[in-house]
């Protein structure tokens, strides 16, 4: 049964790599959410965090590729020893961090690991180290010989997942994030996405014939609304047609207004029914 640790450890390593690298790419920095690298000098944090990502990816991939190898083969043994060392070092680093930087998260899963290092995270790292240790002389991974063995393997994996989840403060962070959506006024929405939403709207189809160009002359944002201004001609007079696109997502409301160019007075909407509010 020791060989079932291979998919478990592989999953932990690859998930850790994905979460860390995603956070690194998003923030383009390495801060206290990157765990033990927060104890490094400022200039070394990002390279250290990037190196940790690469090591996790390499070991996770290596563990998977050597899953069917005999444990005594040099490649397989090297990978398994390295995995054991990684989790062992991690457990030690977390123990030190808890004493020296008690406010810092473990950084194991990027920005999800912001909870200060506690005993649960340390126990998790120790258990993973023990699991890696058990792999050192484990037989190659193989298909279960019988249905009974398959159920036993499945039960073992489920049991391990439950234990890992119970020891992971990241689960509550993940649940919190999945149940939370930033309100539209603080959500980042690209101008290209706003223009796509505008071009798909009935307002655009209705007013497009008045526009001189489909390139906006001005774009700005005010909270949940992004405004796009286009030069146009209406009744032989130059006008500015301004669209307000709500940033709440697909099918969001689009409103429109028309102003005579060079004057300070809004012009009466030529298509009043189109601008129902």
């Amino acid at each position: 049964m020791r060989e079932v640790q291979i998919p478990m450890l592989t999953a932990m390593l690859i998930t850790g790599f994905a979460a860390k690298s995603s956070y690194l790419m998003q923030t383009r920095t390495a801060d206290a959410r990157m765990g033990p690298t927060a104890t490094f000098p400022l200039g070394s944090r990002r390279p250290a965090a990037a190196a940790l990502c690469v090591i996790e990816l390499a070991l996770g991939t290596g563990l998977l590729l050597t899953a069917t190898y005999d444990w005594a083969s040099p490649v397989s043994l090297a990978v398994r020893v390295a995995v054991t060392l990684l989790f062992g070092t991690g457990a030690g680093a977390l123990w030190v961090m808890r004493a020296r930087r008690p406010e810092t998260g473990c950084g194991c899963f990027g920005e999800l690991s912001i909870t200060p290092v506690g005993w649960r995270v340390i126990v998790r790292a120790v258990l993973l180290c023990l699991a890696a240790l058990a792999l050192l002389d484990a037989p190659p991974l193989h298909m279960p010989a019988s249905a009974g063995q398959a159920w036993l393997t499945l039960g073992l994996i489920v049991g391990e997942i439950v234990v890992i989840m119970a020891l992971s403060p990241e689960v509550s962070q993940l649940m919190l994030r999945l149940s939370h959506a930033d309100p539209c006024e603080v959500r980042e929405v690209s101008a290209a996405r706003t223009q796509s939403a505008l071009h798909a709207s009935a307002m655009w189809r209705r007013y497009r014939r008045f526009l001189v160009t489909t390139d906006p002359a001005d774009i700005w944002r005010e909270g949940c609304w992004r405004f796009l201004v286009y030069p146009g001609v209406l009744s032989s007079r130059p006008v500015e047609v301004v669209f307000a696109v709500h940033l709440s997502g697909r099918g969001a409301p689009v409103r429109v207004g028309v102003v005579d160019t060079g004057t300070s007075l809004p012009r009466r909407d030529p298509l009043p029914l189109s601008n129902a509010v």
Partner: protein
Amino acid sequence: MGDSASSDWHVRRSLLRAAVFGQDYEHWMREPAAAPSVAIGMLVDVREDSLVLDTDRGTEFFELSPTTETWLGARTSPTALRFGDPVIIRHRTPHTDLPERRVAERIWARIGRVAGTIVDAYGSEFLVDAHGRDRQYIVVAPAASRQIQVRFPRLAPGYLIDVIGTRHRDHLLAVTPATAQPPYHAGHSPAPPMVNGHVAMPVSGSAVWHEPDGEPSGLLGLSYPAIDPEETGTQPVGGTGCVRLPYLSLGSSVRIRNECSGRAAMLPITSEGVTARQFCDRCVKCGTSPKGRVADLTVAAFVELGGSLEDGCFNATLTTRTG
């Protein structure tokens, strides 16, 4: 006092917005950006009872009264001022039927402020990256060294600094700390809490001021900490800042109220408040501000709203047009 180009820009956007929504154009234009009680210029002459200033409106005269307060690194007498000193005056008109008679209430001479990240340190001299503005050179005045060291215990590269002092040819002579130093490195401010529902308006926090750098000296406006990243084309330096505020654009208008003086004004956003995002501090004038920096005002706007430049901040409420 005001900058016509920027004013036209935000007025035009307000007009275009009103063409769509209609309902609140007048409300938002009721308090246009103007600083009728602020004068900024070079000192031409000073006597016991009057002061002459060369401003962008020409030569202006101001009466001095026994209650006039003058600052030149510390409280001083108006006669300590010298020809050519850059001066900021907040004045009042004691008789409405004599608008040309103006009495100076507060005078600040040579005042400057540097806020940013320490790039290099040589004893009591520091080079500071002022986040988007030119690098600034600070010399800490010997008499203020202890006071600044207490509020800024880590005067080392990578840490934040915010000091007020007097401007000299190539440096700022720091005489007072503008805040207390945040314990974190620049760019590593703690993330603000997640927002449930919409951002509540108005937002109460701290309003600070900055010196013009490439902006007209009398510009009325503010640096806003949450400029739409699409406008700047980059991810915000230092993250989203300590206060979650609605994303706005340059030229958008916000309403700022000084909770200490009761004065309020509509102001256009004239630049990105990168420095304001970095500081998760509180203003402690007339109580402690509930949140960190919500606005980094230009000098003219700060003084017009009743702020004292040497204090560095006032408690403010910010209202935006969102929803």
